C-alpha cells in the first residue's frame, strides 16, 4: 500500500474518534505533548526498562531534555513508576491507568495510534515540543 493510502478500517477508526474526541481523551489522561505520548507508548511496550532519558531519546528521536520533561510529566500523572537512580539509570515501569475512565481513554488512544490515520489525528491534537535551538542560530520572526 503506497504512502498516504489508508485502509478503510483505519480511516473508520480514525473518524470514530475525530471531532475532538481524541483531544478530550488526551486531556483526561493529562497528556498535552506528542513527546509525552510517544515516551508513554515506548515505556508501555517495554514494560520495565532500565535506561536513562538520553537512551530513550536516541530510540524515540527526541531531545534528551524533552524526554526528561516527558518522564517527569508522566510520573506526576501516575502513568510511570521510577526507581531510585543508579549510575545514571532508573527502572521505568509504565503504569496502565487503573480508573475505568482513564484506562478506557488510554486503550482507545493506543489502538487509534496503531495506524497512520490515527497517528495523524494525535499529531494534530498534541503540541510538539519546541525544536532545539542550534548554537549560532537566530530566531527571525516570520513576516
Amino acid at each position, binding site marked *: 500500500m503506497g504512502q498516504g493510502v489508508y485502509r478503510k478500517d483505519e480511516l473508520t477508526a480514525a473518524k470514530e474518534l475525530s471531532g475532538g474526541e481524541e483531544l478530550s481523551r488526551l486531556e483526561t489522561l493529562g497528556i498535552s505533548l506528542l513527546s509525552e505520548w510517544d515516551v508513554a507508548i515506548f515505556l*508501555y*511496550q*517495554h*514494560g*520495565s*526498562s*532500565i*535506561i*536513562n532519558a538520553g*537512551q530513550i531519546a536516541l530510540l524515540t528521536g527526541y531531545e534528551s531534555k524533552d524526554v526528561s520533561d516527558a518522564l517527569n510529566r508522566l510520573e506526576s500523572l501516575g502513568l510511570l513508576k521510577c*526507581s*531510585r537512580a*543508579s*549510575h545514571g*539509570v*532508573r*527502572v521505568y515501569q509504565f503504569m496502565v491507568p487503573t480508573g475505568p475512565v482513564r484506562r478506557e481513554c488510554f486503550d482507545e488512544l493506543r489502538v487509534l495510534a496503531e495506524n497512520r490515520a490515527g497517528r495523524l489525528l494525535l499529531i494534530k491534537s498534541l503540541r510538539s515540543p519546541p525544536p532545539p535551538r542550534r548554537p549560532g542560530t537566530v530566531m527571525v520572526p516570520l513576516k
Partner: protein
Amino acid sequence: MTNGGLIQTGIDGLDDILLGGIPRSNVILVQGVAGSGKTLMGVEFIYRGITQFNEPGIVVVFETSAAKIIRDAAGFGWNLEELQQQKKLQIIFTTPEVLEQELRSADSLLLEIAAGIGAQRIFIDGLGLFPAAAAGNGHSPMTGPGSYRELIRHLIESLLRENLTAMLSHELSAAPDSLVTSEMASFIVDTVIQLNRHRQDRRSLRGIEIIKSRGHDYDSGEHTLRITANKGLQVFRRVQAPLRQKLEQPSTTKRSALGVDVLDTLIGGGVFDGSTTMVIGISGVGKTVLGAQFLLEGAKQGKRGLLISLDEHPAQIMRNAKTIGLDLQQQVDSGMLHILFESPQELDVDAHYAAIIRLVEEHGIERMVLDGMTSYSTALSDQKVYRDFFHALVGYSKHRLLTTFFNYENPEFLGSSSYMPDFPVSSIVDNIILLSMAELNNALHRCLTVVKARGSEHNFDTREYVIGQGGMKILPKDENAAAAQSFESYSSLLSRAPTRFGVPHRTTRAVTAGGNK
C-alpha cells in the same frame, strides 16, 4: 528442579538429548542465525523454569519489546503477563552498556529486581551486541582490558555470583565480527547449543546441536528442532543416535501365533516374541491384510498393537479391513490397537521416530506393523536416512522385545529375482515372508513362502492363499492336488514360468542356524 545436580530446561526433548539436563552452574550460550529460534528457546527456558520447576526468572532484551515477547509467547499458550503480575517473571528492556554497568555495580537495579522476585534463571537476548558496549568504553572491542572477552567473562562471573543460571543468545551471521564474538563466547561459556536452519529441496528444516557442555555427557550430532504452535520448542533425537539401553539384547524362546493358522506351522510354530519379520510382496497381494490379522491375533492374546502407515488414513484402513470381517475399529476403541498415520509429504524422520517410540512406551505396545517401507523410501530422499531409520527401529524393537512386521512392496509383479532390490536389508530381519503372484492357466493366484525364519524349523513350501471374509486363508495343501491349478502340481511357482509336474511335489523343510530340529 534438579536431577543429580542437573538443571532441567523443561523444553520438550532437550533434556533428553542432554541426558537429563545441564549442570546447575553452567552458563549456556544459544547461538544461531536469524529466525533459528534463539529468543524462543531463552523465553521457554525461563517459562518452563517458572511453571515446571518453580524457579522465577528474568528476561533481558535489548532490541525487542516486552509487548512483543508477551504477544509471541501467547501463541504457544504461555501467559507471561500473568507471570509478571505474580512476580515470578520480569521482562526488562535495557542496553548492553547499562547491563554491563548494572552487573558491575553493588547497588544494581537489575539484581535488585532479580532478588525481589527470587529469580533463579536469567535469559539475556543478544550477546552479540556487547562488542559495541566494549567499544563504547574506548577500548579495542575484542582484546585487552575492557575488551569483549573480558566483558563476557565479567558478565558470567556476576551472574554466577548471584546464583543465576544464565542462558545467553548470540546471533550468528556471515559478518566477521559476529563469527569472532560468537567463537570467543563459545570458549568462555560452559554449554553451547547451536540452532541451525537448512534448506532441503524447497523445505526448511531446523536442527539443534550441543556443541559442548562441560561436566556431563550428551547426545552428540544434529537433532531435529521444531517450533510447534500452542506448545513451543520440540527436540527430536536423531534416529542415527545409538540406543542408550544396556548393550545386552533381551531374548526369549516364547513364540506367539501370527493369526493365520497354516502360516504359524510354516514358520515353525509362530514367531519368537521380539522378532522382526519382513513381509515382501507386490501391491495388492495382501501385506496389509496379513498385518491386520497379526495385530488382531495379538489383541486376542492381550498384546497391544501399533499400526504405522504413511499410505492410508486410519479411517480407510479400518473400513477396508471391515469389508473382510477384520474389526480393527473395535480394537482401536478398546485401546488394544493404535494407528499412527503421517503424511509422507515432508516427513520429518526424527519426529516420526519419536512419535513411534512415544506410542510404544505410553501404551505398552507389544506388536507393531509398519505398512509399508516403500513409502518411507519415497518420503525420505536420503537413502542413508531411510536406512538409519530402519536400523534404529529394528534395534529398538529388539531391545523392547517388540514383535514387528515390516511390509515391503516388491516391484516385481511375477517372479522374484531378489527380496528387496532397492533396500537390501534382509540380513537384519529375523523372518521373511514372501507373498507372490503366480499365473496358472491365465489366472493369477496368490502364494506365500516363508523364505527365512531365524532359529526356526520352517517350511519352504510355497502355498496358495486367498483373501476373503476373515482375512487371509492358506488353502489346504492336498486339496485338489490333481486339479490343473493345484500348487502341488507345479514347480517354479516363484519364477515367471511355473511348470506343471503332474505328481505332487515333496515337502521341503529347512532348519536355520540355532533352530529346532
